């Protein structure tokens, strides 16, 4: 049951040395990656060098291995966003979150696979082939942070950085049975994160323990002078939140069960009873049906995508525009259309208005309840190939998450059990900057269920 703090403890007491741990980790990654395809680029040489030279374990992440989604710019380490167009792009700078991880002593193991440009919820649209689900290699890990989720689920290592626009941390976390924490928009700097939907993008940790997610968030969060959308609000003490054990009023909305697989609902009901047993109250609330957020999200996100991808014009990154995949081209065309003269008002502007409605809807709801709980996904991990036939695959798989993402709200996925051998997830989300409350509730649930004991057969204990 390795947590960051336990690992550090074992380093400090000289029970273990990071060099031995890291080399063992790479050995296992090399063994499993041919079937998992979780990693696109390994940082082996540098990681081992860094581990070997480590003497001081004072830094909070000293010698802690971490996997990085491939849309975070890492200085001198290839960064592709799983797009062939950036096949040979080696950033000359570190994303703010990468700098923070490095400054805190973390060792970057490698860059993980994802949907190309983060366009998807399957990791199947990666230009480097899909990642597979550690629980069933014929199934998808979800996405777009599928590589990070699969790595964490397999313990390779159990700590990773992902990013979410609307579901890309929580949905793969649900399908791979790990903790995935998506912070409030602006809580964690986006500087150096290859933009997808700029008004939604958010970096966040994927871990096996709530404690690790809380610890990582505490180190990553904070105002960044390089990101004008990052918030200046002070960062809460998330580690303190782990011990707060407050009782909450939890909202539950019928709209969040529409079209959800009955096996998932069953599993959710068990989790609900556990939360009740822990002393939390449930209250039925009425929310805007999340299905409406699909069209809204599609318009806003495609518009931003069409703009954000303009810089890959073939002038500076070596690869021509023809190397964009189908999915990216589709998104760019749709986005450019909704921003065109004569259509802007009907699509983009209208979507922004509905966004305001959704934000206000949640604001009203959070006057009645502290947090909202719901299933994370409508189904468990689907088979490889299932995303290819459905261009709206991602939007449908993320439909229970999108509304809260559109409102910029924080949320977490917790594993609550297995159905036919596949992980089921529960999500908790709350008002702006309610990470403390979310972590508090998640930790109480974790303490009660020890869900981290659920793991795939190939799980590697570092």
């Amino acid at each position, binding site marked *: 049951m390795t947590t960051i703090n336990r690992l550090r403890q074992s380093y400090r007491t000289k029970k273990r040395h990071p060099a031995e741990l890291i080399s063992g980790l790479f050995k296992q990654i090399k063994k499993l990656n041919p079937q998992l395809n979780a990693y696109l680029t390994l940082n082996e040489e540098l990681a081992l060098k860094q581990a070997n030279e480590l003497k001081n374990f004072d830094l909070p992440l000293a010698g802690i291995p971490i996997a990085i989604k491939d*849309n*975070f*710019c890492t200085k001198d380490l290839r*960064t592709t*966003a799983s797009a062939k167009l*950036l096949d040979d*792009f080696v*950033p*000359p*700078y570190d*994303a703010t979150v990468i700098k923070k991880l490095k400054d805190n002593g973390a060792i970057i193991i490698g860059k993980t696979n994802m949907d190309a440009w983060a366009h998807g919820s399957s990791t199947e649209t990666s230009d480097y082939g899909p990642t597979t689900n550690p629980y069933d290699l014929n199934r998808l890990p979800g996405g777009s942070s599928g590589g990070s989720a699969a790595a964490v689920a397999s313990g390779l290592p159990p700590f990773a950085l992902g990013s979410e626009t609307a579901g890309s941390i929580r949905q793969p976390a649900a399908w791979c049975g790990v903790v995935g924490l998506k912070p409030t928009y602006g809580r964690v700097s*986006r*500087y*150096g*994160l*290859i*933009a997808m939907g*700029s*008004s939604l993008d958010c970096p966040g940790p994927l871990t096996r323990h709530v404690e690790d997610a809380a610890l990582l968030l505490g180190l990553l969060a904070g105002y960044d*002078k*390089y*990101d*004008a*959308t990052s918030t200046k609000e002070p960062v809460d003490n998330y580690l303190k939140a782990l011990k707060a054990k407050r009782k909450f009023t939890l909202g539950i909305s019928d709209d969040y069960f529409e079209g959800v697989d009955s096996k998932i609902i069953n599993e959710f009901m068990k989790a609900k009873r556990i939360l009740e047993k822990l002393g939390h109250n449930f209250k039925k609330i009425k929310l805007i049906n999340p299905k409406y957020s699909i069209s809204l999200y599609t318009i806003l996100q495609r*518009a*931003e995508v*069409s*703009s954000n*991808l*303009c*810089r*890959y*014009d073939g*002038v*500076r990154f070596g690869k021509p525009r023809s190397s964009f995949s189908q999915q990216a081209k589709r998104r760019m065309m749709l986005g*450019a259309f909704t*921003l*065109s*003269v004569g259509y*802007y008002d009907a699509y*983009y502007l209208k979507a922004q208005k509905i966004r305001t409605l959704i934000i206000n809807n949640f604001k009203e709801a959070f006057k009645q309840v502290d947090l909202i709980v719901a299933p994370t996904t409508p189904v468990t991990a689907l088979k490889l190939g299932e995303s290819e036939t459905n261009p709206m695959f991602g939007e449908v798989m993320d439909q229970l998450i999108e509304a809260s993402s559109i409102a910029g709200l924080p949320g977490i996925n917790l594993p609550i059990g297995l159905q036919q051998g596949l992980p089921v997830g529960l999500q908790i989300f709350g008002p702006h900057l309610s990470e403390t409350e979310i972590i508090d509730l998640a930790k109480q649930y974790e303490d009660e269920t020890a869900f981290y004991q659920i793991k795939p057969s190939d799980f590697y204990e570092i």
Partner: protein
Amino acid sequence: MKTKPLFIKLSHPIFMKYKTIIGLETHVELATESKMFCGCSGNYFGQSPNSQVCPVCLGLPGALPVPNEQAIKWTVLIGLALNCQINLSSYFERKHYFYPDLPKGYQISQYAKPLCQNGYLMVNNRKIRINRVHLEEDTGKLLHGQQFNDKGSYIDFNRSGVPLVEIVTEPDVESAPQAAKYLKQLQLIIQYLNVSDCDMEKGSMRCEPNISVVNYNSWQKNQQLPDYKVEVKNINSFRFVQQAIAFEEERQALLLDKNQQPKQETRRYLESKRQTEAMRSKEFAQDYRYFPEPDIPPLELNPTLIQKLNKQLQTIDLPTQRLEKLMKDYGLSSETALVLTENKKLGDNYLRLVKNSQDLDKTKLANLLINKKIAADLNPDDFFTQAKHLLSKKNIDQATFDQTIEKVIIDNPKAVADYRQGKQTALQFLLGQCLRTLGRQIEVEQLKHLLVEKLALKK
């Protein structure tokens, strides 16, 4: 190709028949220390290519823009000086187009809500309305192969992201000289605000006139703008602005003479030919797909900031105020005052130096500076000493010199004889006698020269 005549005589019939409608778009690069959205130096002039760049102004994946507060304040200051309304709520938008010098594929600009709107500038008692003053970023610079002896094209991103203010007039300008006058005045105001050097040649000020020639009578009747206008690019001096407009006036008039409607298009000015030439058709407005820049929160300006900037503006002498001051307080002629107003640096030096030279003639001091008889970059004390020396010289005409010297020679035969026998002290004596008559404040060397000459003659 035959070059067409450029200026048309006022008696030409087209002046009765047609009216020119001109709107001016002016871009001014702000002289902020850093660029608009990153910390790179904005002073790119003369720097080696791509030496002042970072992930942000190169548009690298993941990089984000953070707006430069100084640039926002300076834009508001320009807006206030141009009598604009300031939008307390404003925001940046993305303007999309593909061009190799635009690294992100879009320019961060302002569209629906510019920082400043609805102002005006008085030009020769005529009100030129300002539609908007907004803030955006400059592009990189393309360099084509010839310079490197190959066929390639190169991009220098040093200029990419330099803050750029765009000032757009209503179509209120009626002639080429008026356009030039407006531009000169705009340039001076911005120079006086100390926010840009506005150097057309260096490209820190650029102007694009939009010109439509219309039938005078129909304009008189309905005052309606025609559905064509010609934008002229690539102009880098006030003179060329006038030449380009004059050329367009004739070109469009000749088309209208033939009952042809001028095409809506962008043309480029060619200095060598003194002509404009078609660049691209503008019949269909380009779709820039504007939308609010999601990387930058909306700008909410504090009313007290506007008050502060307004106060700051009150303390700055603008060109009209300086002109008035120089005439009223310093007693300069309008011509002299104008020179010191239009050459801001010279005027600055004059005002700085004249303070310490109170008992000297202010007009003469001005002329010394204007005629470069004295260095302008002196410290006030040295300036005073030098100026005093220069100004105290009397202008004595040749005849007076001659008379005086001759009289001294006649009155002092002994000294003259001594001198002629080689006694140099005698020369000093004679010189002293001349000075006694002429006064001391003359060019002694010149007098000595003349005296020696005369003494030699009378031998």
